[in-house]
């Protein structure tokens, strides 16, 4: 993957819902199918890029199934599309299938849970710039916080398929076990690097899980795991790269560690987006300008969401 601008054939497409599966409490995986021009456009989708879903006309779940903390928000009449990245993209004949891992946090994602096979959804994309692989890399560390695991799962797939010279590992963290967006029992998951997370293991990539409260995997911050792990292998820092997606405080720490160790680092940023395609200016990310103390605002949706970790002012 080279660093380039978003694909030329983006547009508004209609996707058919294939499946929408709850994987744990608040986490779901949605599978969408594109045909025709949409299949073509999304076949070029890169890990870290995103798409904007229109969920305005999607029904709410029955009132009694809505979690209490979301019952007030649920009543809000939504207007704007919502940005999501993909955890997988596969081609099947002339169709393109995409998977979205999502967390139920408000009115739009609540509506998303009622999407079922047979429904369709309007989607704009592919949007933004994804992760890229600079030359000379031999080792990639994927650092995920909570929902950040989504795009990194797809990155793991592409690294394995297209970059046999790069060995990748994944570190996935969350506050507590129930905020980890993975299937299966996590309370007994290994504290060591291994093939414990199927989403990465299926691509032959080892992983470690960390939780702040110790309820799953390593007891502590995922960024501490990163520091520890970087202290271990004696690969030259130029041949390594860190890819990260998750809460901004975590990204800030990851970028700081990368800077200390002089390792390349890419972070996927999140901003509230009104449009997602560069016209509203709502998604500003403060960035450094090289050789200057000045900063500028770049647009998360157009210039990102993936940025060089050194560039972002956290």
């Amino acid at each position, binding site marked *: 993957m080279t660093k380039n601008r978003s694909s030329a054939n983006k547009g508004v497409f209609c996707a058919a819902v294939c499946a929408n599966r709850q994987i744990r409490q608040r986490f779901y995986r949605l599978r969408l199918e594109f045909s025709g021009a949409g299949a073509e456009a999304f076949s070029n989708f890169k890990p870290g890029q995103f798409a904007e879903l229109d969920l305005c006309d999607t029904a709410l779940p029955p009132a009694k199934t809505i979690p209490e903390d979301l019952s007030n928000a649920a009543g809000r009449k939504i*207007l704007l599309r919502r940005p999501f990245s993909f955890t997988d993209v596969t081609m099947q004949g002339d169709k393109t299938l995409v998977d979205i891992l999502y967390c139920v946090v408000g009115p739009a994602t609540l509506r998303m849970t009622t999407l079922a096979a047979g429904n369709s959804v309007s989607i704009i994309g592919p949007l933004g710039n994804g992760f890229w692989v600079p030359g000379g890399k031999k080792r990639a560390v994927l650092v995920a916080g909570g929902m950040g695991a989504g795009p990194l799962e797809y990155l793991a797939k592409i690294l394995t398929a297209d970059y046999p010279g790069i060995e990748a590992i994944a570190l996935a963290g969350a506050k507590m076990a129930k905020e980890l967006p993975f299937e299966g029992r996590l309370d007994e998951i290994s504290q060591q690097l291994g093939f414990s997370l199927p989403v990465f293991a299926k691509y032959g990539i080892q992983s470690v899980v960390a939780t702040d409260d110790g309820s799953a995997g390593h007891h502590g911050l995922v960024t501490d795991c990163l520091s520890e792990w970087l202290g271990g292998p004696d690969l030259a820092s130029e041949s390594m790269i860190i890819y990260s997606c998750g809460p901004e405080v975590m990204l800030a720490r990851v970028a700081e560690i990368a800077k200390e160790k002089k390792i390349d680092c890419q972070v996927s940023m999140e901003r509230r987006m009104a449009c997602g395609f560069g016209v*509203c*200016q709502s998604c500003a990310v403060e960035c450094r300008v090289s050789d200057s103390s000045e900063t500028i605002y770049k647009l998360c949706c157009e210039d990102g969401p993936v940025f060089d970790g050194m560039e972002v002012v956290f």
Partner: protein
Amino acid sequence: MNESVDISVDFAGIHLANPVFTASGTCGYADELGEYMDINRLGGFITKSITRRPRKGHATPRIVETNSGMLNAIGLANIGLDKFIEEKLPVLEKMSAAVFVNLAGETINEYVAVAERLANEKAIAGFELNISCPNVKKGGISFGTEPVQVKEITSAVKKAAGEKVLMVKLSPTVTDISVIARAAVDAGADALSLVNTFTAMVIDIESRKAVLANKTGGLSGPAIKPIAVYLVNKVYNEVAKDRGVPILGMGGIRNASDAIEYIIAGATAVAVGTANFVEPGCAAKIIEGIKKYCTRNNVAQIRDLVGSLLKEE
């Protein structure tokens, strides 16, 4: 079927192929929506506010969604006049829609400087004077709430604008919008556009802080439409009709029915704002929908519909 319907309008001397614009701040500087629609189908196009120097704008969060609406506090972030001329004007030159450059600034001199510099550019049909931005401390809305200041800035920019059409964009956050409209027209405004966003606030009750970094923002979208339709009708009846000044109506327009409501209320043309974010090709659909409405209702020329609100006898 639609061939016989004439949806072209005369807007302050500019011939528009149809009465649909895209609104400032929601369609970029030039052809950004081109990936989603044929922008040459637009009647008019209004750029993001341009200031003399580039502006970074406010910290984030800059937007928050509300019930059927959204607040924005972008802070007039824009690339500035020089870059606009260098990078965007050449693109605008190729557009068939009537191009209006939205002007903003902190002092009258700044507005005048931008207008003067662009007054002879053939790519531009006119200016939209933004004296109604609720999101900047200096300039912006403060020019748009005092009739004396409205007159002063309008006449200064009118001089600088030369042959170009000057449209003044009004804030709805005033006691009597007609007083402001009259001041603008008295000072030489060729057209009026309304409304800009309503100053508003959203509070996070857990943190007890305003959600937007700027604390307040401007409310737009379907939530404001009925108030904006009323204000257009009021300005049409109290000022624009008698003075022969066209109105560009906007606020929450999402479909042709919304657009027609504004036209009946007194708008000669309409602008689509927030809806571009959700459906970036919706302006083209609205144009088609207006044609269909005219056919269905035997309206031979859309201009006959302007201000056609019936008064009960």
